[in-house]
């Protein structure tokens, strides 16, 4: 680890921790904004869980707690706010460090290794998400740990991390499939270790939660059935608010299948570029999950520097940049117009959530296109050549 890399990690730690301590009210403000907090990731719901746990109230008998029991129990061991801020800052700094380590795994990388880390550190979406103390940080940490250890060939750590990520946020379980492609060998072992870890986590949660399985619905059931309808940047919320009652179960199944739909195709089609397939799957999940936040999107965008050789092939880079700027500027404004002022209606914010989905979709499409192009060019960029799919 050279000096520059150390600087990046230190900057990450300092910026997160500094922002939390210098602007203590920023956390509450961000935690209330729908862009950075959802019912299943918000810090206030985690705090409520800690409160209920400490006072022996029922944790998962209805109510607002949708975090897994072990996370709540873990957080209840911290008392000081500063310590918790430090914990979140450390988790974020660790992700930055892991991104740098990942860059080192690619020997013929055109960029210095510290660049992806630096991009992660200066990405405002990630910074704000971390300051809001959203539990997305922990699932992102688990995902990046899994990806790094898979790249390094550490099959046990990778499977344990992906199991933890799945335990925290459910959908990362789907990333097991592209991860198997990265690991190449010990596939059976990976699957078994992941399943065993997940089973162990679930069982210990059962024990922690007074021998009751009711946490399963409050944590994962809520994600799958989208039972807490609260506006977010995803595609689900307005659809299920406006949908006629009798079609809701059918469309919930359709939306869940939609999340799964592209995982296998990506893993198969880009079997030769497993890291790339992993990122594609991650972005597909970010696009289609039921409770997305900008924290997920920011985490995803930090992987884009890894694809520097593909940049030349991007067709919509201007459009997607504009779409992201459009979303980040207008989303708080339109939400405020709808909910606080009442001078706009829900369609304003709905439009923004569609734009965000379009932005993610253009990035995804561009990545796929660029990879197909470079495959055609057999690694030697020939940007002037015009290609078309038939």
């Amino acid at each position: 680890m050279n000096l520059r890399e150390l600087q990046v990690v230190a900057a990450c730690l300092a910026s997160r921790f500094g922002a939390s301590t210098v602007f203590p009210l920023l956390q509450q403000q961000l935690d209330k904004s729908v862009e950075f907090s959802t019912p299943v990731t918000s810090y206030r719901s985690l705090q409520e869980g800690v409160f209920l746990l400490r006072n022996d109230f029922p944790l998962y008998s209805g109510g607002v707690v949708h975090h897994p029991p072990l996370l709540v129990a873990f957080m209840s061991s911290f008392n000081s706010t500063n310590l918790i801020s430090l914990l979140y800052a450390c988790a974020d700094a660790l992700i930055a460090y892991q991104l740098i380590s990942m860059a080192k795994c690619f020997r013929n990388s055109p960029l210095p290794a510290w660049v992806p880390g630096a991009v992660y550190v200066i990405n405002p979406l990630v910074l704000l998400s971390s300051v809001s103390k959203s539990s997305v940080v922990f699932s992102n940490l688990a995902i990046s740990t899994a990806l790094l250890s898979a790249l390094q060939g550490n099959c046990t750590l990778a499977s344990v991390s992906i199991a933890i990520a799945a335990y925290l946020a459910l959908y990362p379980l789907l990333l097991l499939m592209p991860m198997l492609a990265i690991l190449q060998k010990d596939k059976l072992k990976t699957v078994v270790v992941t399943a065993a870890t997940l089973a162990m986590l679930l069982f210990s949660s059962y024990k922690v939660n007074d021998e009751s399985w009711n946490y399963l619905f409050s944590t994962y059931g809520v994600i799958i059935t989208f039972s807490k309808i609260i506006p977010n940047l995803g595609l689900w919320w307005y659809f299920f608010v406006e949908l006629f009652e009798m079609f809701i179960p059918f469309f919930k199944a359709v939306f869940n299948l939609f999340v799964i739909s592209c995982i296998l195709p990506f893993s198969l089609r880009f079997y030769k570029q497993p890291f790339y397939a992993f990122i594609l799957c991650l972005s597909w999940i970010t696009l289609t999950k039921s409770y997305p936040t900008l924290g997920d999107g920011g985490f995803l965008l930090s992987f884009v520097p890894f694809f520097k050789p593909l940049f030349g092939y991007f067709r919509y880079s201007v459009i997607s940049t504009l779409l992201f700027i459009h979303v980040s500027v207008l989303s708080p404004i339109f939400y405020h117009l709808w909910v606080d002022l009442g001078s706009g209606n829900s369609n304003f914010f709905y439009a923004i959530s569609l734009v965000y989905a379009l932005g993610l979709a253009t990035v995804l499409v561009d990545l796929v296109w660029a990879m197909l192009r470079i495959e055609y060019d057999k690694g030697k960029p020939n940007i002037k050549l015009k290609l078309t799919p038939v």
Partner: protein
Amino acid sequence: MRSLAGAFFWIVLFCAVITATTSIDEDLNIPNEAETAGNAYQTCSAECLSSASEEISTDGLELTDEEIKVASMGNTSDSLSLYESSESIKYPFHEQLTLRPLPRSFMFASFEFLMRSNNFTVGEKESDFNAYRHYTVFPKSLSPLLEYTQTRQLHLRFTHGRWDSESWGQLPHEGRKSGGTGVELWAVIEAGSKDDAFHNWISLANSLSGLFCSSINFITAEKTTYPTSYSPLSDESSLPIFNTSNSLFLIRAALANEPICTENLTPFLKLLPTRGRTGISSLLDGHKLFDSNWQSLSLDVETHCNAGKCQYHMEQFIEMVFNVPNSLARADTPIPKPVQESELRCDPTKPHDAWQCFPLPQSRDTKFRLSKLFGRKIIGSSLISEYPSKVCANVTDSWKVFIDVNDALFSTEDNCFTIKYDNEHDLHIESTDTSNVVEPEPIPLFVSRSLTGYGQDSGGLRTVFRNPSNETVEASYFETLPWYMRIYLSSLTMESVDGLEIEDVIQNTYYLPAVDRQRPTHLNFKLLIPPNTSLALSYQFDKALLKYAEYPPDANHGFEIESAVVTVTRPISYELRTSTLLLSLSTPDFSMPYNVIILTSTVMGLAFGTLFNLMVKKLITVEEADSRSSSSTSLKAKLAGILGKIMRTSRKVDVEKKHQ
């Protein structure tokens, strides 16, 4: 054939009446009954037999107490002259009207009706073969309902308006007879399990809904709570359990958005044996009652058992607070008009002419009649009850109260009047100093609750408690919140100028979080509030978005949140409710369903379709693609080829023509 069947039906009916009336002496075992009254019953039942035979064609089996009265009175000329007047028929019914002037020209009126049912035996069902039950003053409509749903206690409140406790003092009956704004219902139900109890509760609510013409049927699991400690249950030990394997469940629900209106009063009066036609209930007119500043209708039924014989005790209260000058002015001019110049009372110390006038404060003299306040006179006494109807005025020396019988005024020492006969009565009330009223009883605790925050996605609840007394107040704070208020109990904070901590005040917390569409939040604090302090408890909540169809009509009006119940247990026993709240939720655009389905599906389809397209198709250069498309394999190429051929042939033809 039909007439034969009809005749047979009437014969059966007649036999039923005979068997019923002959068994009347066993059933009519009313406690506290004078010996003479017992005799009267027997003669009455004999009379009923004869009268029933005449009246049966119109009334069938519905031998209500009134018919009994009519029969016994109508047949006094017959030879059975064991009694002279109807006064000797006594039923356990008691009614009283109490008037109490309040400060600032307000007047509190309380109509009290107490009645008891006849004894019935535990385990004997009404539907049993040869079971017979006689209803005297107890309403026939309630008893089967209570039996069917195994309800041992029933409490129903219809309340509307604001009780100004700062100037009016304590609520009547220590607050136990008035609910929060809207409808409040709670009952003690005997059942084997909670599910059975809930099932009975729902059927009770649905039946009451029909009985009282109100939307009590909107009570669902979403609104129902099972309070652990709630004042009516304090005397639980006295509640009978008919089947020892069962247990008792206290179930409660409130509908804050239910408007209270005339159609609720009529069924209330119908439960009375006098039906609002005689006695003090003849004063009650929907227009006047619901024109008052505060009104409350309450119904309480309790089961009391003694050695296998049980009895329902029922209390009905209709209470209201009028602004006397306003009500009198309304009686004179139903359509409000500006005061005539000649009637203006201007302050002579200030300039006044035809254009300007500084009005004097309201006159302290007053003189009015009850008939002007209520629009009616009292039509006689309730002649069937054990006690004659009573009218009492709770006033100070500066007030004079007279009763007007046949244009003659009478007064009494204690300002209580007994209405004995069936002629019209009126009350004449006058005062030289309306501000001199009976000292209101001090309030042990003031509680007010309000919503904080401005957004439609989150907010806070803030409850201010003020103990004005010199004694520590022990109270229980009970709150039910709908599931779409997602409360964060961890955000509970306390503000206090006296440096109190949460632990000093909240002794005990019961918290049952809400389950979406199934259960409301149930929050109960045991509080200990030190003397002469005030403190505010507040906590935050998020508002959920509802589904399209779950919003009521006029969704932007907001949702009524029912009042919290505060039960003071020490130093005195008192119950009060906070006012209801109006919670506004963010609403979707109700005209959008198809657009949303189409737009979201388009974006999803666009992403999926493009990716799928890229992944399954083969990449080739544009030139190659062009050359492929120009080959004859594709339909377009074929079409182009055919078109080209036609063009060429036509050109050939042209060329040939030219050649020619």
